[in-house]
């Protein structure tokens, strides 16, 4: 097997599975096919790490930057599929979903995975745009899966805001093409990343500037940056929980990846406006705003959705600051956030199932009534809040220390936001995990395995990062400049 | 040889303070009575009282614990040790380096601490009143006292009493505003610490304003005797402290001969008598304060102590 085979597999497996799943009626088989496909995709993606990389073509490529994202994407895709397989049957029993819904769900899951994988491996700004749109539209449909007024409302909001975002990103893409076209000539080559990056210094900086604004707003909507975030909390809260995990853990990363790619382009052109300050501003705004919003949340999934906004803010801030340490920290934080937030959603799914509600006020004393789940949730939330030994602590350590030495005022705002968010998360956690257990007590079907697997990984990375991963992150951090 | 003589000197000092203390209390009472145109008990009455109390049986409150019974001895011992360390008629006592001025204050603090605990032991309301007020007074008197100690120590460059006395007597000091303030502060503290008017009235019972007497209300017999003796010792201690710091003359150096010693002794005696009379006059001419006026009174001492310390720097830098 060669690298290009693996690359093709990463894309072909989900498409094939989607077709198969759309045809199969039984949800049990489907759910395990879903898991198996996701696992195979993960294997294919992981094999990219060791195999020779395929030569970048006009449409696809694998490089140091996107391989991080691909492996992470397929990994969380697999664990979420596993969680979903143990979890989603219950929704059928409670009558929230019909078998037809589930068939649609599984097919869409793979299409969504395909869209995200494609966006990550694409070597073409047009193709990337198409792929991100595909992933967005498929998640819109997933969010509205329950057909409740709330879910439809959330899906609709997501759809409208997402569409506008897509349109703006497209305009940005067109502008980049226009900037590249005089240098690289007409046609497809002027949309290929590998060409763009090389030729970027000769691009018209003014055009690049306008393009970046549109791309930042457009893809930033997907990342969930404030003030483009409005779709995110509702979409997370109203969709099926495995999808919330995928949304928070993966889709945001894919959009972030797009932003990073264009940031590279901007930095390559010396005369263009520096993307850092813009990203720093939006990052801090997202962080502080989301931190305040955490205090008034009553729905557990919406709470963690806002926490995703907050963390996206931190990551964008880190990349905005730049430099080897901050970039390293940003990458690490992104990986950790994906793993931790999806772990949290795995736990939250079970909690919502047990208690029959997502209302924070009706969930109490989980460590008492369900120790493994409760303590798992406690550890995951503490991890996301930056408590050691999770990797989030390491990334926040690096971000805060390095940014304080370079931009003290910004670091102070950062610290303020972090603390604010910490206070809010902990307040809710204390209520949910401790105290006298109250409320209903339905049986729990969802597996705790993915939750604890993620936790183990988070702690492993926090304490002893594998050498290969370090080297790889350092390379990428250097690329990001 | 020198060691033995020093030991003897130390022993004499210890016996001396013990012997003189009740007399001083008697003297103050006598003078007060005379000033009030009363006959008054003889000066030696306190000795008789002590002897009588010693012989009497102890009536112990049902609830009293071992702490109540041992406290009088501890209080007495702490006060006695403290009093023995203050130079009275001679400096350079054998064990004067055992504790300095700060430790002296703290030793008295220990005595107060155990007395207050004992006050609470019987489980009565009066004991509690006494203890809580005593601790409040101590809370303000102790820092004032330490500030005085600071002033003195900063002037003399030592907290070691013997060295302080030597320095003070040497005439290098001159007259300083700081020292005057320290003196007034020390007198206020002494009045408060010894439960004298206007802070407390040593002669009353059955009065809600009493402090010291309320604490020792449950004591009787030999226990009461020890406490009374300790109180007298404390009065003497403060007198000799004021004497040796502010009137350091004619205190015999350690190596002095018997005649100097005798002279020192005589002057010490004179200082005590003068102090006792002055105290009585002061007590007669003031009225007892409400308890919650006491902090203001002690606050004056605190301020003076602090001012004294700070002025020291001003005068030095001038």
């Amino acid at each position, binding site marked *: 097997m060669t690298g290009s085979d693996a690359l093709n597999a990463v894309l072909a497996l989900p498409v094939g599975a989607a077709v198969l799943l759309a045809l199969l009626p039984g949800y049990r088989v489907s759910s395990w096919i879903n898991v198996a496909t996701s696992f195979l995709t993960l294997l294919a993606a992981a094999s990219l790490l060791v195999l020779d990389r395929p030569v970048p073509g006009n449409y696809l490529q694998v490089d140091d930057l996107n391989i991080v994202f691909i492996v992470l994407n397929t990994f969380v895709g697999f664990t979420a599929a596993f969680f979903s397989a143990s979890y989603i049957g219950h929704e059928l029993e409670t009558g929230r979903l019909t078998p037809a819904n589930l068939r649609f769900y599984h097919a869409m899951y793979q299409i969504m995975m395909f869209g995200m994988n494609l966006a990550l491996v694409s070597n073409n700004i047009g193709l990337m745009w198409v792929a991100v749109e595909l992933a967005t539209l498929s998640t819109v449909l997933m969010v509205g899966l329950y057909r409740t007024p709330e879910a439809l409302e959330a899906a609709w909001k997501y759809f409208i805001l997402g569409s506008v975002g897509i349109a703006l990103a497209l305009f940005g893409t067109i502008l980049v093409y226009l900037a590249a076209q005089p240098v690289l000539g007409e046609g497809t080559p002027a949309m290929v990343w590998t060409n763009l990056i090389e030729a970027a210094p000769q691009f018209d900086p003014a055009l690049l500037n306008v393009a970046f604004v549109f791309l930042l707003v457009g893809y930033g909507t997907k990342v969930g940056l404030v003030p483009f975030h409005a779709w995110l909390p509702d979409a997370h809260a109203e969709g099926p929980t495995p999808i919330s995990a995928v949304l928070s853990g993966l889709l945001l990363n894919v959009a972030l990846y797009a932003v990073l790619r264009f940031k590279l382009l901007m930095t390559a052109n010396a005369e263009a406006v520096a993307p850092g300050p813009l990203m720093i501003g939006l990052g801090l705004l997202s962080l502080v705003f989301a931190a305040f919003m955490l205090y008034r949340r009553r729905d557990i999934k919406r709470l963690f959705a806002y926490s995703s906004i907050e963390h996206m803010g931190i990551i964008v801030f880190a990349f905005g600051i730049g430099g080897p340490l901050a970039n390293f920290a940003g990458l690490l934080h992104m990986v950790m956030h994906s793993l931790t937030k999806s772990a949290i959603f795995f736990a939250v799914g079970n909690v919502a199932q047990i208690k029959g509600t997502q209302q924070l006020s009706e969930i109490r004393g989980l460590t008492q009534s369900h120790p493994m789940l409760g303590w798992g949730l406690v550890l995951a939330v503490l991890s996301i809040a930056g408590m050691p030994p999770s990797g989030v602590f390491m990334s926040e350590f690096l971000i805060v220390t390095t940014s304080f030495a370079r931009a003290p005022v910004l670091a102070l705002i950062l610290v303020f936001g972090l603390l604010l968010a910490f206070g809010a998360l902990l307040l809710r956690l204390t209520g949910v995990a401790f105290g006298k257990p109250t409320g209903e007590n339905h049986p729990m079907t969802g597996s705790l395995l993915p939750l604890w697997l993620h936790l183990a990984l988070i702690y492993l990375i926090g304490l002893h990062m594998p050498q290969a991963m370090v080297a790889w992150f350092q390379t990428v951090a250097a690329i990001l400049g | 040889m020198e060691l033995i003589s020093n030991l003897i000197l130390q022993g004499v000092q210890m016996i001396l303070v013990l012997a003189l203390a009740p007399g001083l209390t008697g003297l103050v009472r006598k003078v007060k009575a005379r000033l009030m145109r009363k006959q008054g008990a003889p000066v030696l009455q306190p000795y008789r009282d002590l002897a009588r109390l010693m012989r009497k049986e102890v009536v112990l409150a049902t609830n009293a614990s071992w702490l109540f019974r041992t406290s009088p001895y501890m209080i007495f011992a702490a006060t*006695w040790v403290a009093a023995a360390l203050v130079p009275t008629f001679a400096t350079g006592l054998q064990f004067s380096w055992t504790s300095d001025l700060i430790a002296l204050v703290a030793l008295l603090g220990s005595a107060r601490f155990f007395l207050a605990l004992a006050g609470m032991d019987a489980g009565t309301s009066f004991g509690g009143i006494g203890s809580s007020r005593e601790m409040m007074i101590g809370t303000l008197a102790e820092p004032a006292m330490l500030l005085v100690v600071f002033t003195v120590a900063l002037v003399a460059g030592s907290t070691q009493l013997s060295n302080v006395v030597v320095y003070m007597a040497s005439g290098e000091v001159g007259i300083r505003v700081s020292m005057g303030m320290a003196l007034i502060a020390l007198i206020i503290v002494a009045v408060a610490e010894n439960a004298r008017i206007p802070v407390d009235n040593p002669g009353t019972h059955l009065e809600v304003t009493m402090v010291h007497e309320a604490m020792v209300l449950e004591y009787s017999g030999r226990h009461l005797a020890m406490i009374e003796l300790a109180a007298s010792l404390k009065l003497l201690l403060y007198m000799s402290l004021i004497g040796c710091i502010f009137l350091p003359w004619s205190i015999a150096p350690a190596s002095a001969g018997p005649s100097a010693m005798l002279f020192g002794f005589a002057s010490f005696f004179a200082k005590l008598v003068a102090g006792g009379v002055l105290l009585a006059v002061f007590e007669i001419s003031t009225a007892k304060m409400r308890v919650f006026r006491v902090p203001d009174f002690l606050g004056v001492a605190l301020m003076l102590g602090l001012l004294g310390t700070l002025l020291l720097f001003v005068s030095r830098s001038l």
Partner: protein
Amino acid sequence: MIEIAAGLALCLLALSLAAAVVRGLSTASAFVYGASALLCLVLAIVGIWMLVTQAAEAEMRIPVGLPWLGAHLRLDALSAVFLTLLGVGGAAASIYAIGYGQHEHEPHRVLPFYPGFLGAMTLVLLAADAFTFLLSWEIMSLLSWALVLTNHRADETRSAGYLYLVMAGFGTMVLLLAFGLMAGAEGGYDFAAMREVERSPLLAALVLALMMVGAGSKAGLLPLHVWLPAAHPAAPSHVSALMSGVMTKVALYGFIRVVFDLLGPVEWWMSVPVIVTGAMTAVMGILFANVDSDSKRVLAYSTIENIGVIFVALGLALAFRSNGMEALAALALMAGLIHAMNHMLFKSLLFMAAGAVLNATGRRDLDGLGGLIHRMPKTAVLALIGVTAIAALPPLNGFVSEWLLFQAVLQSPKLSQPGLQFLVPAAGGLLALAAALAAACFVRFYGVIFLGRPRTDAAREAVETDRWSLTAMGGLAGLCIMAGVLPGGLIDLVAPATEMLLAARLPAQANNDWFTLVPVAEVRSSYSGFLVLLFIAISGGASAWLVHRFASRKLRRAPAWDCGFPNADPVTQYGAGSFAQPIRRVMALMLDANETVVMPPPGDMTPARHTIRTKDLAWSRIYVPLIAAINTAATRLNALQFLTIRRYLSLVFGALILLLTGLAIWN
């Protein structure tokens, strides 16, 4: 040595994991606590060995933490001093817990966190790079938070835990900033690298300020102390002992390590805030202890006081050092270190005593106790030693450190800055006030709990605590006496640390006659706890013997006299509130105290009501407005959750136009 110490820390952490596995077994508690005690004892021995042999500093590196740096661990004299402190405190708490733990309702909420807490503290002391330091620091916070939440069903425990962890998070963030400043943008996180950097005075001042906030919030410095009186009492008593006795010292260690070791020279004026804050903390802490009526909270507030005292000592040391007077700086630092050691001893002892009382009666409110000296005689004796020590009375150990500190204060004329010359004696006066207030506080504490008559049935039926607890308390009490009577040994033990930090030390004390303490010169000052004890024992014993031998020894029991108004109801005794009344009135301004009396009209049979309210000014003036501001902001911003889609689009549109306009202008 370092290998052993690091191994012990890891063993303790591993023990936590093991405890999580075996938590169900009936013997788990004894096993975990026993093992912790053993490991802590070895730790103490390692520390002492290091100090006694004056072994060379040792470093090691384990591949954990920041990948390109690894975890640097280092054992030097300063670490060894605090390791000793931790080892002794940890061992005592663990031995105590063997007995105390039998009464725990939910051991599985304590056991998995307890050894790890000790291990994390050990790692903090050993850490030699910023990441390892903060990692262990935060794990220490986290595990102690879990321990605080043991009794999670009580609302106040949960809010205490919440407040604690938020403040801990705040402290860590501030420390992050401090280390960020010291490491620089390139990330020189290794302590060795930090030592090399030359810093401008402004930068050094900033780091110092950040350290005061960061380490101070953990130690309980005003006004960052608010979590401490809530969190320390909420934990099980052996954990309270550890938190108050040891964890606050670990915070101090952090401060000393950075300010004295890593930061390099500081200007004299930087010592001013340290001294002022320390003195204020001391006075305010003990004032609150004087008016609080919860036994463990009183102790927690008193911890704040002691931390203030230590900070004054550290500030003095800084002042002397900036004036080039290393020997005097060593005296002040020594006072601080010795006081830290002493405070660990007596505060642990007192928390254990409070825990024993809590176990025996189920009560922490002072007004529900009383007369326990009869029911728990051994605990009462040990607690008496504890309160005497903490009230800084000779001849016990609390006085020794206080005395050393006053000696340092009295050296202030040697300082060349008039500002400091004024400030230091004033701070000394405040310290004296704090010491006197401490005496008042602990008369009340001991008197209301152990003396008098029992106020409730629970107190009436209390039974003496178990042997393990008594052993632990006895050991600590013994050490309190030892440290008070033979302070020279302790000073000589700690001296290598001051030598390492300041290149100066106190003269060796071990060979002085009669175990006398002579910090500077005999002409200046000296104190011998041993002789004081000896004299008191001899004179007290002799007088008692004489009186009993020659006067009377008759004794009769009778109802209390009480001025002729004996009242059978124990409620008429002075309680916690009434005892505090004089001080509360005198200091009403600082306590924001408020008394209301509701007196029914004549003829009305309803009881009169007297209510007292005291407020922590820091809480009501700083935290309440802050919380209110955050709440207001959160409520205002929350409106943004409920906008229509059109409005959200307007936001996007507005931001886009803003960015484009900015771009147009920028060009």
